[in-house]
């Protein structure tokens, strides 16, 4: 175990940095304003890996692998046999969370599956995204508690002073990424998924080559192909990333330094999470947001509350409605210089001098070198065009048979667990079962302190939809202030908001800001997935005292008109 960790560290740091900077320059596709750019880890079946490791650390991987596979049902015990004439039933290009989820489900469905990875297993989420950032946020959360005298006093706690060791914090993030990466790799191996190393390129229908640069390519055939190549940080032009003082999330997660004053360009999920981490560690932060409001993409009410709690009381200020037109890294004894222009008029507005700048303007799809031209597909702003079933669409608007694209590279919903869900949906389809993923049931979360989570529509979206489709929209809200568990934790700050149709009790959206919001959202997202109505879910029992009662109360406070007839749709009689 030890050996593999240190190995992965060294392979991760030096070459990765150089290749990445090349990549970022290549991708100037713009997705700057896309709000949903955070990476979450819906590591489905990750438990397998954990299981394999737990208590068997010293044993060879094969052994633990077998053990875990024995625990599974027979159908999972081996990779399938390919259909006639193909090397594989399914080849997945990209072993991120999306590819991983698809591969696991494919094996479960009896498909002979291969996964091609040109970098490291786990993709952005595990190596440069949600996983290491959660490690940093776990640290920042504790720092905040230790630093808040009021909070400690309210508990009767006395802590003399809180400090941290930067390298220790960085190691925690790195170790977590390694561990999850190993779990992922092991879970693939234990199921017999072939992990093919190198850059995957589509040569033509049902044909893929892969191989490392400078080595001979291998060509394989597959009945179906899934593109799951993900994304890289998007860096707007005019910004010079040096990896030291002007950085992207890739660098920020390594926590190589904690600058005294950091500008964060972009106030979406990524920027917000990093502001939480870096301010807890002592940095001051200046947000630069192109839109007129911070935190675009959140329900406005939640955004306001979040700003009140996450921005205003902290050592953070902000400039909204401005672009960072030029950012020069610190050099020659000068600080990082950021030139701001008005987002609308493009007039020069101000110049900032800071110690570091973090570019969190979103993510650009990583689709170069995929060989899309060989199947007559043209990317749109870098994204691979797909239909609602993730089937790839070519230049002429026709579906390309047997090619699908999931995850960040299709840009539908740039979330790790969305990619995984899309992968599963595709596998269902190639196995002959039609499946359309309801993206409105996919939850999202931002892991600040406290957390923000949401599923479905925001209130303005719901109202617009209601106006267009002629239904009424109601809103119910509950406060964490009234929740026993939250008060016991001295964390009464928070709000849960339900957006619903009062006529039939359909849940349109749920937004939560408060303690453990990210864990609380799933009751709502499950309800949306399953089509559960408020009038039914309000009878579900919640343990007392738990935070889940916030949602319980939320559902109970919704007013669904009682006259709903048992016949939902008009029926001729």
């Amino acid at each position, binding site marked *: 175990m030890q050996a593999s960790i240190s190995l992965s560290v060294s392979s991760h740091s030096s070459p990765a940095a150089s290749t990445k900077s090349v990549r970022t320059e290549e991708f100037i596709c713009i997705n700057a304003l896309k709000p949903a750019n955070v990476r979450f880890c819906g590591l489905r079946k990750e438990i397998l890996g954990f299981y394999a490791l737990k208590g068997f650390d010293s044993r060879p991987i094969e052994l633990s692998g077998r053990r875990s596979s024995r625990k599974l049902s027979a159908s999972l015990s081996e990779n399938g046999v390919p259909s006639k004439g193909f090397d594989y039933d399914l080849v997945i290009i990209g072993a991120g969370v999306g590819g991983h989820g698809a591969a696991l489900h494919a094996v479960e469905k009896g498909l002979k599956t291969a996964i091609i990875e040109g970098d490291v297993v786990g993709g952005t989420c595990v190596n440069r995204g949600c996983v290491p950032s959660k490690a940093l946020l776990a640290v920042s959360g504790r720092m*905040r*508690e*230790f*630093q*808040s*005298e*009021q*909070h400690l*006093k309210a508990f009767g706690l006395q802590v003399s*002073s*809180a400090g941290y060791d930067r390298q220790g914090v960085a190691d925690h993030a790195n170790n977590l990424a390694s561990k999850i990466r190993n779990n992922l790799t092991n879970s693939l191996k234990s199921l017999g998924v072939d992990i093919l190393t190198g850059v995957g390129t589509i040569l033509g229908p049902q044909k893929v080559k892969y191989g490392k640069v400078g080595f001979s390519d291998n060509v394989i055939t597959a009945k179906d192909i899934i593109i799951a190549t993900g994304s890289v940080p998007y860096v707007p032009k005019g910004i010079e990333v040096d990896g030291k003082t002007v950085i992207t999330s890739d660098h920020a997660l390594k926590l190589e330094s904690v600058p*005294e*004053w950091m500008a964060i360009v972009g106030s979406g999920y990524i920027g917000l999470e990093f502001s939480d981490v870096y*301010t*807890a560690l*002592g940095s*001051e*932060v*200046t947000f630069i947001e192109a839109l007129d409001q911070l935190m675009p993409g959140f329900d*406005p*009410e939640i955004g*306001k*509350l979040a700003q*009140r*709690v996450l921005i*205003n*009381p*902290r*050592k*953070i*200020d902000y*400039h909204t409605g401005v672009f960072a037109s030029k950012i020069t890294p610190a050099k020659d004894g*000068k*600080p990082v210089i950021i030139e701001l222009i008005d987002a609308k008029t493009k007039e020069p*507005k*101000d*110049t900032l*001098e800071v*110690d570091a700048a973090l570019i969190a303007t979103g993510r650009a799809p990583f689709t170069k070198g995929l060989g899309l031209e060989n199947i007559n597909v043209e990317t749109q702003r870098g994204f691979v065009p797909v239909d609602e079933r993730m089937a790839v669409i070519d230049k002429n608007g026709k579906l390309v048979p047997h090619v699908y694209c999931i995850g960040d590279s299709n840009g539908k919903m740039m979330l790790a667990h969305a990619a995984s869900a899309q992968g599963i949906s595709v596998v269902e389809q190639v196995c002959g079962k039609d499946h359309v993923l309801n993206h409105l049931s996919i939850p999202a979360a931002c892991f600040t302190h406290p957390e923000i989570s949401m599923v479905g529509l925001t*209130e303005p979206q719901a109202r617009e939809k209601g106006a267009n489709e002629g239904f009424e929209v109601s809103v119910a*809200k509950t*406060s964490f*202030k*009234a929740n026993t568990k939250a008060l016991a934790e001295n964390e009464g*700050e928070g*709000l849960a908001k339900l957006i619903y149709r009062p006529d039939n009790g359909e849940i349109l959206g749920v937004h939560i800001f408060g303690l453990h919001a990210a864990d609380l959202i799933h009751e709502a997202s499950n309800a949306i997935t399953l089509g559960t109505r408020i009038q039914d879910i309000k009878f579900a029992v919640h343990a007392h005292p738990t935070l889940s009662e916030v949602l319980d109360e939320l559902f109970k406070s919704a007013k669904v008109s009682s006259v709903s007839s048992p016949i939902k749709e008009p029926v001729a009689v």
Partner: protein
Amino acid sequence: MASSLLSRPSPPCNTHTISFSYSLASPLQWPSRHSSFLKFHLRPYQRNPSVQAKIREIFMPALSSTMTEGKIVSWIKSEGDVLSKGESVVVVESDKADMDVETFYDGILAAIVVGEGETAPVGAPIGLLAETEEEIAEAKAKGASSSNTVPSSAPPAPSFPPPSPVSGTVSSSPKKVALPPVSDGPRKIVATPYAKKLAKQHKIDIGSIVGTGPFNRITPADIEAAAGIAPNSSTSNAGSVNVASPAPSPKTAAPAPPPSIPGSTVVPFTTMQAAVSKNMFDSLSVPTFRVGYPVMTGALDALYEKVKPKGVTMTALLAKAAAMALAQHPVVNASCKDGKNFTYNSSINIAVAVAINGGLITPVLQDADKLDLYLLSQRWKELVDKARAKQLQPNEYNSGTFTLSNLGMFGVDRFDAILPPGQGAIMAVGASKPTVVADGDGFFSVKSKMLVNVTADHRIVYGADLAAFLQTFAKIVENPESLTL
């Protein structure tokens, strides 16, 4: 989403508002409980109606049907911030939840009348909205004259009048003219986000600070040095959500707070206690003096025994006696608003201090000189019931013109009351005790005697005035038949 902020233009001035505005400038009846009421009286103070019309008041909104008062959780905007319609300005805690309150109008937040952590009844003004920058100063002056300029979380700096005898309104709260982002002065000022926040909080002109940080930027430490506060241990930063942060950092002159004794617990003031504290502090700006007087109470006690079965209380008797005495000495019922004028009040409203669970309130017996003893007693009973149920209306506790405080029932023989800002005098009544008295003929006898001690504003009430008033009062008490008339 939140409810909208009720702001409406101030009504034009009319002549009789002067008496109101008086009570505005001299805010709280002593131990009044909510500092906010006085804001109630903000409305009328326009001197120049045409301009005034553009200064709007921001009112405490009713966020629920059951809400009678709201607590200001935080001001999202600070004084001097430019507001546009629909923007959230303030967060109000109702009985159920915190709500953002939005403004209906564009303008500039000129003054915050009710600070963070304070409470105001529904409908009371909590801030002033100016339409243009020129009006800010004016609005500010109004806000300041209400003596509640400072949001409680801010350091008390502005409430310390400058040592010079100049009137308090001048106490400079430097205008933050330029809003942070655009500071295109001749010299580029670079200050870190926290430094800017601190500067705003401590009302320090950031342009006057020389930065000592990297690249000559202004750091939080620079601001702290300028504000004369010891830098808080680095841990005190971030994190904590702001409840009135108890880091009062008076200006350089003020001494640092004494070190806290280990093991002590700190309990923040309730709203009422905070209001009392503030009033007490404000009272320091009034030059007061005290005059004591012995009053024989034999006759009064006898009368009391007679009328007690009819529901008359000692409080009503004393209030009636004081009111009747005040009717003959209007100057003691007057007040000094601005240090230049006597303001003679048309009614005699006796405020009576009442201790109430952890606080103090002064229900007011209005027109105590005109009501008969029985009505007065009945009225008093109603007020006490209301006070207990926290249902007193603002005019039932902030309209007093003279205050009566009685600690006699605790056996206190004499004490000294603090004059509540806005009134001319307060009477402290001790216990009535059997005392050996010698008369002019050298005869000794034992009589019930109580000591009353009146504190008055010497700008308007002089020693002889007070002595004459006390003499009258003593005469009434010693010959109490007139009380029942």
